[in-house]
């Protein structure tokens, strides 16, 4: 079945990432940890999708969903064996970013983002956690997720203005 073309305007992941990040910071100040953590993850998701589209070859499908056209075949070790290259939620999205960035022969693009790719800071994040009761959510979790989102948004902004050199 083919998805129907979307009638909404195309997503602006870069702007959305900043909105979610600023909302997350506000929520942190108000000690709304569950919301802060949820928004930090969404901010990072949007920043990653913006990076993938701006610099690493991902495209929007007619329904507005981003995907990478060269990533149709599942990596043998991937959990989603039938992944068709569509970018969804963290933490799997992080692995997609890693896979795409490492596939690139473009040294400069690889370098910019390789500094962000050491380990998945969202391995313990799930979009469904907005329903959690908050008892297992620590300040350390939220801070780590916020910092990772900040660095991703800054990397995208810097690359837009200076090109994809290193972040040194």
């Amino acid at each position: 079945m083919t998805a129907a073309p979307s009638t909404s305007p195309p997503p602006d992941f870069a702007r959305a990432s900043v909105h979610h990040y600023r909302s997350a910071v506000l929520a942190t100040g108000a000690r709304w940890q569950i919301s802060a953590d949820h928004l930090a993850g969404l901010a990072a998701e949007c920043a990653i999708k913006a990076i993938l589209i701006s610099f690493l070859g991902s495209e929007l499908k007619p329904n507005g969903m981003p995907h990478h056209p060269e990533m149709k075949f599942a990596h043998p070790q991937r959990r989603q064996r039938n992944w068709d290259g569509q970018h969804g939620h963290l933490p799997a999205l992080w692995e997609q970013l890693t896979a795409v960035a490492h596939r690139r022969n473009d040294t400069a693009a690889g370098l910019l983002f390789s500094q962000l790719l050491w380990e998945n800071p969202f391995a313990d994040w799930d979009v469904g956690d907005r329903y959690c009761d908050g008892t297992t959510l620590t300040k350390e979790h939220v801070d780590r997720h916020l910092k990772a989102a900040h660095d991703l948004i800054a990397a995208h902004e810097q690359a837009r203005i200076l090109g994809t050199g290193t972040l040194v």
Partner: protein
Amino acid sequence: MTTPPPPSARFDAAWKQALAHAGQAAQRFGMDVVVTRDLLGRASLLVDDRAAPLPADAPDVLSASAAFAAATHPFTGLEPVVLGSLLFAPDLFFASSDRTEISASHGSVGSVHALERTVIGTDWTSAPVSAQAPNDEDWDRRDRRVAMYGFKGGVGRSTATAMLARYLADRGRCVLVVDLDLESPGVSNLLESPSGIPRHGIVDHLVEAAVGHGDGLELVARGTALPVRGESNGEVWFAPAGGTPRAGERSDYLAKLNRIYSDLAPLTPGDSPRPFATRLEQAISACENQVAELSRRPDVVLLDCRAGMHDIAAVTLTHLSGLALLFTVDNPSTWEGYRMLFEQWRQRQDHVSDLVERLRVVAAMFNSAGDINRLLALQERAYNLFADTLYEPDSTYISAPDAEDAPHSPIPILFGNDLIGLDPLRSSAWPELPMVEAVYQTFTTTVERLLPSPHPEPS
């Protein structure tokens, strides 16, 4: 009627326009401006309005943006004018240590800085590594390193390096020669026969250390092609560009060479990034440490670096050496090359005075034939170049064109036809030929005088 194509500027003209518009914006808005140039050469103006945010649709902003785009097309960034108040991480631009000051703020006019992202070559203008984390040992190491550099190749730089090493060892010093001419290595062949070349070289250290695997390499060997004379306890060690693999081992030099020039992310999350300058410094330090382990600390380290505008030379001259010998022959292309180089350095006013004190011109292959006037002519050209570019207006060198120890004062290496095609391995006594000694005498004795004292004997 067809529409005329939009006016367009070539690369240099576009940048000149971008800088001019940056100056106008700093004046018009009374705010600091950073003019960026990306990997393709496309420029944007970043106006720091964080203290008093401007509306993005203010007529001033829109007209500045339109004028900037028209003047710099097609080298215009994705957004011609970017307001700092709208940036997510403005300090990455307005507080970046990579900025170069174009003009300082004065009165109600803001400052202008340039911030460039290039593929390679940022090391030509970046601040010295040792200035970023100075400690006594770092300074001592740097002061003992001598960069041997020529803007043009083929001027006898490697031979002079070997001769200098031999002379200093004769005088009791422990000398290490590092072959940094990685694209056309050679100085090692003047110091050792192929069988004595160590197993690894500088390129091995650069690729292995990149993945945290730099320990245990065999990087240095003691040179035997230039036996040290007399009772001296001097030594000549060398570190080749690439090693000689053991029998049965394979070494793909080109595959390594093609991977070494990157700036790298930290090896461990949270550590500092590893720019190329730092990586090369670590490779040289590893060679020095090996000589110290096998014998004693080197008193002098000669860095034979490749000719031309290249990152290796940039790093070696500006970051890694205490003395930089600039090999020069008196012809227009050499002077034009050095002028380009010096004008790059002049952009970093914060460390240019430190750099100038470490430079000395060498009159390479100087065919004097008893005519001192030719050396004076070369000195005058060198003086004019330094005075135009690197000397501060109040420098004592400005008033002393014929000062003997000024950076522009040329140290001559005479020219002799007999030196052409010399095969040092076939005639190991070649440095002792009277003709050869005469050629290098002024050079070797002058450089010796410029070096730090040898390390004291361990008690």
